[in-house]
């Protein structure tokens, strides 16, 4: 059997919640349905073995679990499992929601936390506000309210300006009354960032240092992210690095810092000048440093590293060598040596886009990492289309 016949074994999630897709997930077709049970077994065992391997255990365990659930569905008459389809954001929540009324602050805390963790942000905010009316003197409840708004602001949920402003006011009062409350500072900076009030965050930074003697890492990261959106971007990256240095073994901090650095790098896309090549590379090297040692974060940064390394490369049109990378050493750092005879740089080709008779662009656009890096980036040539062009029919790039 050829390699490609086994592709289904490596598919992590079914692409739709239908029986046909569930069967395809187990290689039916090309196998016939009589082989279903065997295929399920083989796939489960393959992913089981991966889940005990030296890396990627989390993903493998997740897939193994999906295999089990789909086995139940296909062979044991269960219903199609929830939240397993590729791209679905559906999260399973097994915890029961506590009763909607509360008579103590403790109950209120529990309820708001449960609502937030289920993504019911507006209800969480409204419930916390009810608490605020009931216990207007309680700092704990004040923090809870602004925390609920801040948590919602960190997601795709659209928080109303009224809620944001009220929460900012509330947390400002808390930070005045309880200047050593670490959560309150985090909340306040998150809320200011969500409202785009970056100048105030900069003032906040100095104030926190004065009150706490330093900036706690979660707040440091909020400020770093805010700075990325201001002309003070490089200082933001410095802070991201500081956050990682504070505990180099913390994968969560590395993830957060690396995504901040990627956001910064994306500000230089599309690359349209030599200066941007340098800046993009600088930001990507920060991302790479932040991601260092955490495989799942390194995977995220990798396409950017590849583009940083190659964007200024020259493409020799008509050379076969371009297509002939077979196995090539990775992650080299390439020092450009100026060549007066040079053809175009890769970034120029991407910037200029497809034009008649120019095959280089199509060759480049076939490289997935280049498209990944530029997802959502606007090009002149892209105009109103959302997707990159396919190569012209009948053109053989090899």
């Amino acid at each position, binding site marked *: 059997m050829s390699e490609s016949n086994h592709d289904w074994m490596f598919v992590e999630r079914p692409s739709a919640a239908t029986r046909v897709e569930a069967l395809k997930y187990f290689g039916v077709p090309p196998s016939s349905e009589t082989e279903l049970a065997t295929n399920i077994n083989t796939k489960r065992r393959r992913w089981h073995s991966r889940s*005990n391997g030296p890396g990627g255990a989390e993903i493998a365990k997740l897939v193994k679990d999906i295999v089990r659930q789909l086995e139940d569905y296909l062979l044991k008459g269960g219903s199609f499992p929830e939240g397993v389809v590729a791209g679905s954001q559906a999260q399973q929540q097994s915890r029961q929601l506590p009763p909607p009324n509360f008579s103590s602050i403790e109950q209120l805390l529990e309820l708001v936390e449960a609502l937030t963790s289920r993504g019911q942000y507006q209800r969480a905010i409204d419930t916390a506000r009810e608490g605020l009316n009931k216990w207007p003197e309680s700092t704990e409840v004040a923090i809870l309210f602004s925390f609920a708004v801040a948590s919602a602001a960190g997601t795709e949920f659209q928080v109303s300006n009224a809620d944001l402003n009220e929460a900012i006011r509330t947390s400002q009062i808390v930070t005045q009354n309880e200047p050593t409350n670490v959560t309150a500072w985090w909340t306040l900076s998150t809320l200011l960032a969500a409202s785009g009030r970056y100048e105030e965050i900069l003032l906040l930074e100095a104030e926190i240092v004065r009150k706490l003697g330093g900036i706690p890492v979660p707040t440091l990261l909020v400020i770093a992210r805010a700075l990325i959106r201001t002309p003070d971007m490089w200082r933001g990256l410095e802070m991201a690095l500081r956050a990682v240095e504070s505990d180099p073994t913390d994968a969560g901090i590395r993830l957060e810092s690396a995504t901040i650095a990627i956001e910064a790098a994306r500000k230089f896309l599309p690359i349209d000048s030599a200066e941007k090549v340098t800046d993009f590379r600088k930001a990507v090297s920060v991302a790479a440093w932040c991601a260092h040692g955490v495989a799942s974060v390194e995977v995220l940064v990798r396409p950017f590293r590849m583009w940083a390394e190659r964007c200024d490369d020259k493409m020799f049109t008509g050379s076969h060598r371009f297509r002939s990378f077979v196995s090539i050493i990775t992650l080299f750092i390439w020092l450009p040596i100026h060549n007066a005879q040079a053809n175009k740089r890769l970034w120029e080709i991407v910037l200029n886009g497809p034009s008649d008779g120019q095959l280089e662009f199509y060759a480049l656009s076939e490289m997935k990492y280049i498209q990944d890096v530029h997802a959502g980036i606007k090009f002149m040539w892209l105009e109103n289309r959302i997707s990159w062009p396919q190569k012209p029919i009948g053109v053989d790039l090899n």
Partner: protein
Amino acid sequence: MSEIVGIDLGTTNSVVAWTDQNGRTEIIAGPEGSRIVPSVVYFDPEGGIIVGERATQFSVIEPTRAARLFKRGMGLNSFLNNGEKFTVDGKTWSPEELSSLVLKKLVTHASSHLRQEIKRVVITVPAYFGEPERAATRLAGEIAGLEVVRILNEPTAAAIAHGIDQRGQQSRMLVFDLGGGTFDVTVMDIASDGGMTVVATGGDRQLGGADFDAMILEQMADEIDLKFALDLTEDLYAFVDARNKAEEIKKDLSAMQTAQRPLTIGGKPFMFQLSRANFESMIAQQIGDIRDTVMNTLEMAGGGTGGIDEVLMVGGSSRIPIFSSLLKEITGKEPIFSRNLDEDVAKGAAILAAKLRGDASPQSFIDSIPLPVDVASHGLGVSLLEGEKMVNRVIIPSGSRIPASGEIEAFTITDDQMQLQLELNEGDEVDIQFVRKLGESLGNFPKPRPMSHPIRISMSYDADQMIQVKAFDGKTGDFICEINLKHETLLSMSERDKARDFLKGLDFE
């Protein structure tokens, strides 16, 4: 010649053994007479440190001052369920440091029993342990001030101990080792002279008796919630007591069809009962996982399920009856239990220690048994770009006999390439997501190279489990860069020395 002892450093229990020049092995008991030392460390509020059985007792009273199951965190940052570090009185203890305390205790017993200071040891590890976990085990020994003469795989140790009674036959053996925290399956070929070669290993670093206890504990909590509307996890003492009872019930069920224990919750008594059938359905998922691992390992070994001549059961949890039925069903062979199931691993380590000491009398069997052949339990490879995809290209596949070496050719990726980065990975998978990066290094070409210029990468893995990767210019032979992996762990050298000095000054029993 200075003495060497063998140590089984287990997740739940540890054992030290010694073999004399005539090949007679004894398990060394502590002053309290116990041959098995629980791998538990208790930190008393006065600053004293207690290891073993007494630590287990204190851990019931003050669970947050006791560390257990730390072998699961070897080479990682944390062994606690919540991913946090174990901290007591403001000091954080790494799994390596905690293990070194257990080692120190065992070696103290051995020293007073043998009336000389023991400085050298053979320590066993699960066969499925990767490089970082093995390095962490060596480090634990170093922190305890010991020279770790050899790291030996637990199944091999068990097979050595088992094999000395039945030599003379050539056979293929499956060793099923299910302990307190780890699970190992090993298929090995035993030659007629007793020489052993591992053919395939599989396992799970995070599966063992402690997980079965947790399942029972969960059931207890559910019933208590249902009956009294109380949360067992909120009451620390009731919780720890229940956890111990859960283990007792589990052990009872290996001999009986039902078992029960009284629990106390919120001052109320409660009799918890469990049948063997219910227990088995509770751990159905783990049984399924274990079956899959056994099948995968047999497949890797080749020769199918029928090719196994003997099945040896090792580790306390292999006493659970469903596992012997499972293995009988798969292999068609009646599994063998050794008489001293809990001591065989240490015994095998002691025999190897005696062999390495080199002073065995010519009449003893020790002189005649060959040294076991080690194999790499995971593949070793380097990251390469293939097309536009980063892949792991394996140079030394799992199952290779150690010492092993290999070489591949790679190419530069662009014109005027000046540098290259080498990444060493552990794992046999091509997909980079499923391997673990062990090290990296950056080097320069003597001068810029054109695209597709060849690069030679060689790798070696020697008997001391030291890994070396080197890259050379494929045309000129110039050296570019290398990775040397020896005792690299999460602790830096200075941290290690600090830990060792700290340990020296400790008052501990």
